[in-house]
């Protein structure tokens, strides 16, 4: 059975061309780029090309930094903790503003900084499931706010946040703005010319690059205390020998992601809509968030009367990989803030399934997945104690 991978917001297949580009840097050009000898220096042209591709991919200028690190989680920690040390610990600022729906790597980092005395404000989302400019204006204070951190696109719903407007509001108020773009690169245009963000973070493995490598964009002239102290790599801003093959792979992956944006916006979107229409044709289903506000690849669907984990178990048994936000085993049963803000019944909190496509998803796979989803919904509703037709 050919399995169907519809969990691309978790991670993606490495594009075979990316893998090929990385290959020579394991056993042939394996030098340390900081060495003086030829083993070291011969890695430089490919590394420079990768950096050029990354800079071009997000429209960064030569005076900006893109720090190569291990992932967006590291980048997010770097921004939040770095600014805590630079602006909050000994003043002059005291607060961080973020949202209730950030990835745990931002939320847990904020909770840690709160334990050190920082004040963190968590903005709610509106009925569209995103944060609007008005809400941001109510939460920032030019004298107190050190940083605003709002994700570019949400990992669960795919909802794209109005980061351009939010970044502009921050700039007007002299407040730094960070956006976690991990779910945006390769799905929507990420351009630092258009969006005046000060810090942007991303991970290669979300756009068909390898796991364990990512980037942190820092706008020119900004100071940020390192997270990792050590050698002089990344001009002292992030110590640790650069993962040469992974940087090279990420560079090419970025270039291809940007080249494929039009394909993503047309063909992947068409497949996503086809899947979404088929899901909505099943009675008593719904999809969270307006289509036009979402990344072209994501569906967060709810199947009334079916517990999320039971459904992904069943889908998995039939060769379809998806994910659920409703972990029955999670230690907290706090209602999902996006659901609450969007007026989605608490009953549905345990029925959500996320399908996320990529440019590698085919129409044939979508059609097979639809058949599996239908069959699974039917089977699980037949044994459901809470599902009644038309209710």
């Amino acid at each position: 059975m050919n399995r169907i991978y519809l969990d691309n917001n978790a991670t993606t297949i490495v594009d075979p061309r990316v893998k090929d580009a990385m290959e020579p840097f394991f056993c042939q050009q394996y030098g340390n780029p900081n060495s003086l000898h030829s083993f070291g220096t011969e890695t430089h042209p490919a590394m420079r090309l990768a950096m050029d591709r990354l800079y071009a991919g997000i429209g960064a200028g030569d005076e900006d930094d893109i720090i190569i690190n291990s992932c967006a989680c590291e980048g997010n920690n770097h921004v939040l903790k770095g600014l805590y040390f630079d602006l909050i610990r000994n003043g002059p600022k005291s607060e961080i503003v973020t949202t209730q729906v950030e990835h745990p790597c931002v939320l847990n980092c904020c909770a840690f900084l709160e334990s050190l005395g920082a004040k963190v404000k968590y903005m709610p989302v509106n009925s569209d499931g995103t944060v609007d400019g008005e809400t941001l204006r109510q939460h920032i204070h030019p004298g107190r706010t050190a940083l605003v951190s709002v994700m570019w696109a949400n990992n669960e719903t795919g909802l794209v946040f109005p980061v351009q407007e939010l970044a502009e509001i921050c700039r007007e108020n002299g407040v730094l703005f960070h956006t976690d773009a991990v779910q945006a690169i390769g799905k929507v245009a990420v351009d630092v010319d258009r969006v005046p963000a000060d810090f942007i973070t991303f991970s290669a493995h979300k756009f068909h690059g390898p796991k364990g490598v990512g980037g942190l964009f820092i706008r020119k002239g900004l100071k940020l205390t390192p997270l990792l102290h050590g050698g002089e790599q990344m001009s002292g801003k992030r110590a640790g020998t650069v993962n040469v093959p992974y940087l090279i792979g990420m560079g090419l992956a970025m270039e291809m992601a940007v080249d494929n944006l039009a394909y993503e916006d047309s063909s992947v979107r068409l497949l996503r809509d086809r899947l979404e229409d088929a899901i909505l044709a099943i009675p008593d289903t719904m999809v969270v968030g307006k289509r036009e506000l979402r990344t072209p690849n994501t569906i967060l669907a709810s199947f009334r009367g079916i517990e999320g984990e039971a459904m992904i178990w069943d889908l998995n048994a039939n060769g379809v990989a998806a994910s659920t936000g409703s972990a029955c085993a999670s230690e907290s049963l706090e209602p999902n803030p996006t659901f609450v803000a969007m007026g989605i019944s608490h009953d549905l909190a345990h029925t959500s399934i996320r399908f996320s496509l990529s440019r590698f998803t085919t129409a044939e796979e979508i059609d097979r997945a639809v058949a599996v989803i239908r069959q699974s919904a039917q089977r699980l509703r037949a044994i459901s104690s809470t599902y009644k037709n038309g209710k």
Partner: protein
Amino acid sequence: MAKNDLIGGSLWEQYSAKVSERMNDPRYRGEISEVEAKALGARLVVADWGAEACGDAVRLYWAVDPKTDRILLAKFKSFGCGTAIASSDMMAELSTGKTVDQALKITNIEVERSLRDNPETPAIPPQKMHCSVMAYDVIKKAASVYKGVDMSSLAEEDIVCECARVGLRTIKDVIRINDLKTVEEITQYTKAGAFCKSCLRPGGHEKRKHYLVDILRDTRIAMEQEKLFAQADAGDFAAKNLIQKHRVIEKALDEKIRPALAADGGSLEVVDIREAAGTVNIYIRYLGACKGCVSSTKGTLQFIENMLHQELAKNIRVIPV
């Protein structure tokens, strides 16, 4: 543990083959209709437990022979994850053929054990243990429906941790006996809180009546108080202040005197304690049968005074008012 924890196992990898099997093809899924129950000469019992909003809901159907109380047939429906479905299926199987009272003795722990592939390896990971608790709760609900009684009347004791089935009494006792100071220690000693963690503190997977943090705090406060009282009660009577004297006098009355008076239907209360010229005067009022009894100013009074002399100090005088 560390090495295995670092990569983080998948929940599903920790399910036994029996759990997977019953999830994929539950044997007791479905409903029992009134007609089917009647055909068996049985009474139909339908019990619901849980709610979609909590992530788990199960409905249990029993066909019970009203003459023998025996469960002839069991079926279930479930809104729940794989382990909830598998546990409900096993619960239905275990209850089949038992009387309602016997079925009431089936616990979530027995359900989990029955789902094991081998006796040594748990059938489900710890954080999924609460899914099997549903199976136990719905049996209790079905039994209460059958017997026409309130469900709380079937509870054997006040359970704090449903997953490990640890009661309030046990938890208080281990805190006292072992002088436990942290919730983690309670979990080490009793396994309470080791599974779904709901009972550790408010805000967890589900709302609980008791939380380990509260039990620990309250028990520690009670222990501190007892320690202070014990310190205050010990030592020389003469050196005590009036409040401490009152406490030990009441204690002596409770232990040595009031039971004797109660045997004859009487009692007494302390009205006042006054110290004058090296004597402690205890003013008492007789109650019940002692009131107006001839002996109350003679033999009984002598008995009380002697007892207090023996227990506390010689310079005590008891004065009835």
